[in-house]
């Protein structure tokens, strides 16, 4: 496999100057478009979640003509809505020592020094404005009695910087953003296309200038041209079939862009969230996240002995039958200073270790206890109900068990993907004109995202970054220079129609979901919470087989010229099958452990100084900064050909990488 370290191919376009001044300097010198000319430029925004919705609304406010697309029936249903816990901001309202620098540092360290310093700093800086904006829109954040905004500590942070709206922060932020979008729709600045899915990207003279879409109601294929294209299409967690993502979340937009030449960066960084409701059977369609805020008061444990665990699995013992000294509160034991609040990747891996050791407590063996009995004794049931009432209720609905009386059972599940399309400081991919926001890009979270940072990034990108950076690109473009009558559009439309025809004519025997399950199972076992060279090679060997079987034996009833949900799923799964390969290549070549990417061959042992001197534990992720302190950006080279790796070196001027210890 070839690989390049080439600044010319991957120019991150980071502005000069000290870290803390880069963004303000950038804004002072960015090219502008005068107000009278803005309306001549059109911009396509794909996705209407926090990143896409806020970008579409704000760009329209600025005067651009915006077209916004979503596959859901309304922009309000984008998956950002499901985020529970909160949004970080360095407001320091708690006077507990927070600052932009500290939020930046925590995010960089949390990402295990695999994110771009300048982008992460900007994210922390912009976090201040986000809260102002959301409050002005009427987002009902939690308040103190005096009327000020309340905060909580979240996801291992040592300051209280998380703003929240009960357990529905994502919903309230998205509704704020959706209302801003509807306001612009009513004013005519945004034309909204719900139930419309982007199926491919259109390039004109090397620039991204449009998309081909399918109207999901009529099945009609059509083209849309614009002066720039923005993808805010979320993550690819559903490559695992089971995840906490909504059923419709998919990689199609990003994968089609990749096939048109956009580089896919760090696809192996996939976050496994530690607190989800365990899988209960084969029929299962998705996994439900329980907010990690539960770890503020819940204690995670499994029995010390395998025998006790086996009896619990068989229903012969209950959690409450296990005496205190026979319980292993493994997070508190291994990470005394962070305890149950250890970062997501660490908590998830510890749960897997306990279950792999035969001490899991769910029927399937894959589950650990999250126990509130101490907190209920200490604070009273009412206080716990006030903090987590809706989550407890949700748990009871799904599991049929009452968490006030018996401990919850939880297990890690795929939740968020840090990898995404490569972008520079402008949030523009290597394809001129193609901009990528939110979870769909790769830049801010490194190898692991901290809790309450996804909402922050989506809104930072959409409300504040892209409105300031897109003019840099547009200023070099003559407005309205492309239209859908051009041959480039005809050709992509033709390709899309042919692919649909191919899918419809297979008429095999198996449902789309059955292939998706096969793919998900393979990826979960071989490219999931922990990875090995052999496992990844095996996955790469098996993937073509699943793909061939899919194209030979998939069955899509009905017609393509109308609503057909099997066809929609089939297109997405076909893209997941292709995407899985680049993900495995990335995981295979990154021969280190960092953040959420854990390679079993690379962990600290008793031989390492940092273990001997007590700084970290054996079994923790071992980075190799000398070899892998870079972004891995993959270039598509055609079907059946291995992708080519390009490396963007990561340079840390302000914070030299250190071993991440949460002990």
């Amino acid at each position, binding site marked *: 496999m070839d690989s390049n370290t080439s600044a010319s191919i991957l120019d991150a376009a980071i502005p000069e100057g000290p870290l803390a001044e880069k963004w303000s300097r950038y804004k002072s010198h960015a090219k502008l478009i005068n107000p009278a000319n803005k309306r001549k430029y059109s911009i396509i925004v794909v996705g209407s979640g926090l990143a896409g919705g806020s970008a579409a609304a704000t760009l329209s406010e600025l005067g651009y003509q915006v077209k916004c697309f979503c596959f859901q029936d309304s922009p309000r249903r984008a998956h950002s809505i499901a985020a529970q816990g909160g949004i970080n901001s360095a407001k320091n309202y708690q006077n507990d020592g927070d600052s932009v620098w500290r939020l930046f540092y925590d995010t960089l360290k949390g990402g295990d020094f695999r994110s771009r310093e300048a982008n992460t700093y900007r994210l922390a800086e912009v976090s201040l404005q986000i809260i102002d904006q959301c409050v*002005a829109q009427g987002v009902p954040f939690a308040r103190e009695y005096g009327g000020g905004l309340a905060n909580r500590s979240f996801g291992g942070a040592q300051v209280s910087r998380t703003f929240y709206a009960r357990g529905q922060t994502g919903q309230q932020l998205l509704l704020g953003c959706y209302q801003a979008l509807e306001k612009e729709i009513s004013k005519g600045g945004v034309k909204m296309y719900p139930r419309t899915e982007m199926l491919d990207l259109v390039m004109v003279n090397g620039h991204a200038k449009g998309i081909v879409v399918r109207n999901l109601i009529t099945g009609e294929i059509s083209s849309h041209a614009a002066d720039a294209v923005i993808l805010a299409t979320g993550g690819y967690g559903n490559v695992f079939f089971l995840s906490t993502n909504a059923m419709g979340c998919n990689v199609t937009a990003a994968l089609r862009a990749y096939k048109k030449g956009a580089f896919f960066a760090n696809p192996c960084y996939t976050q496994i969230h530690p607190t989800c409701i365990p899988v209960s059977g084969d029929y299962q369609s998705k996994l439900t996240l329980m907010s990690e805020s539960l770890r503020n008061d819940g204690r995670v444990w499994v029995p010390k002995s395998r025998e006790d665990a086996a009896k619990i699995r068989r229903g012969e013992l209950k959690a409450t039958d296990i005496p205190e000294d026979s319980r292993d509160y493994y997070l508190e034991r291994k990470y005394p200073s962070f305890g149950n609040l250890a970062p997501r990747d660490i908590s998830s891996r510890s749960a897997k270790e306990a279950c792999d050791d035969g001490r899991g407590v769910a029927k399937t063996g894959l589950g650990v206890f999250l126990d509130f009995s101490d907190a209920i004794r200490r604070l009273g049931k009412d206080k716990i109900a006030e903090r987590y009432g809706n989550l407890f209720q949700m748990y009871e609905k799904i599991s049929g068990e009452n968490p006030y009386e018996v401990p919850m059972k939880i297990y890690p599940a795929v939740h968020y993907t840090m990898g995404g399309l490569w972008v520079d400081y402008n949030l523009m991919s290597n394809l001129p004109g193609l901009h990528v926001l939110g979870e769909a890009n790769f830049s801010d979270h490194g190898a692991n995202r901290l809790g309450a940072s996804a909402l922050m990034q989506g809104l930072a990108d959409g409300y504040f970054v892209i409105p300031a950076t897109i003019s840099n690109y547009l200023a070099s473009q003559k407005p309205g220079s492309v239209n859908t009558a051009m041959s480039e559009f005809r050709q992509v439309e033709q390709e899309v129609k042919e692919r649909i025809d191919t899918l419809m004519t297979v008429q095999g025997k198996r449902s789309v979901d059955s292939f998706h399950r096969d793919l998900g199972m393979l990826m979960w076992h071989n490219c999931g919470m922990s990875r090995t060279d052999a496992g990844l090679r095996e996955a790469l060997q098996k993937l073509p087989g699943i793909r061939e079987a899919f194209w030979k034996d998939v069955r899509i009833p009905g017609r393509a010229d109308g609503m057909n949900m099997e066809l929609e799923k089939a297109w997405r799964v076909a893209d997941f099958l292709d995407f899985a390969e680049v993900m495995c290549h990335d995981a295979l070549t990154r021969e280190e452990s960092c953040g959420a990417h854990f390679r079993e061959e690379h962990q600290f042992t008793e031989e390492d100084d940092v273990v001997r001197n007590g700084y970290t534990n054996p079994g923790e992720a071992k980075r190799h900064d000398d070899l892998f302190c870079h972004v891995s950006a993959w270039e598509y080279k055609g079907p059946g050909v291995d992708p080519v790796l390009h490396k963007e070196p990561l340079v840390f001027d302000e914070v030299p990488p250190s071993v991440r210890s949460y002990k």
Partner: protein
Amino acid sequence: MNLTLKVWRQSGPQATGHIETYAAEDIPEEASFLEMLDIVNVGLIEIGAEPIHFDHDCREGICGACSLTIDGIPHSKETGVTTCQLHMRKFSDGDTIWIEPFRARAFPVIKDLMVDRSALDRVIAAGGFVDVRTGSAPEANAIPVGKETADAVFDAATCIGCGACVAACRNASAMLFTGAKVYHLNNLPQGQEEKDQRVLAMVRQMDAEGFGDCSNHFECEAVCPKGISVDVISKLNRDYAVAVAREGLAD
């Protein structure tokens, strides 16, 4: 468990619909209602029949996409749940379950159990927002909101826009939906400037979309998966009356 399903099938917006009978066999009681339909659909796909179409996405009760009328009640007889959060343990072996779309004049059927609820988006677009330009917001803590007000508006803001309130109403009224948004924004200091204009525009759009009036049966509150109180309808009526009066005075 084994069940008999009576499902509304309609091939397209213009087509005539009908009830079709299906056997749902070997359904685990841990499965959700939508997972039960997934199982039935796999069976249909394998024999080359078109699967039952229904809207769904997050499957955790927050996106508002799922929209089934189960045994005559939107989101089923269970209180405080969306269809996706309903689990089969609530049914018994041998049950017959009737599954229909959310029915309302303003929600035309697209296919089978899927309906077009874009009328609700247009009600929001008419005025369900605070007109604040990105970047122009004052410092967040410069707008104090008392905890009680914040909690009360939150209860209204929690609406997921599923439309069950409309489907449950004999008049297909969207007053609970509209009232919830008006309550949320009109009771916050941020929403005061556009208070009258908001309620007038939203109510007029609601009427234009073909939603009916409220006749105080409160079926909407009973089916709302988020438990939004009909008090928001009284508040909507009051705000509307005041706004109409002020509009009259201004003329």
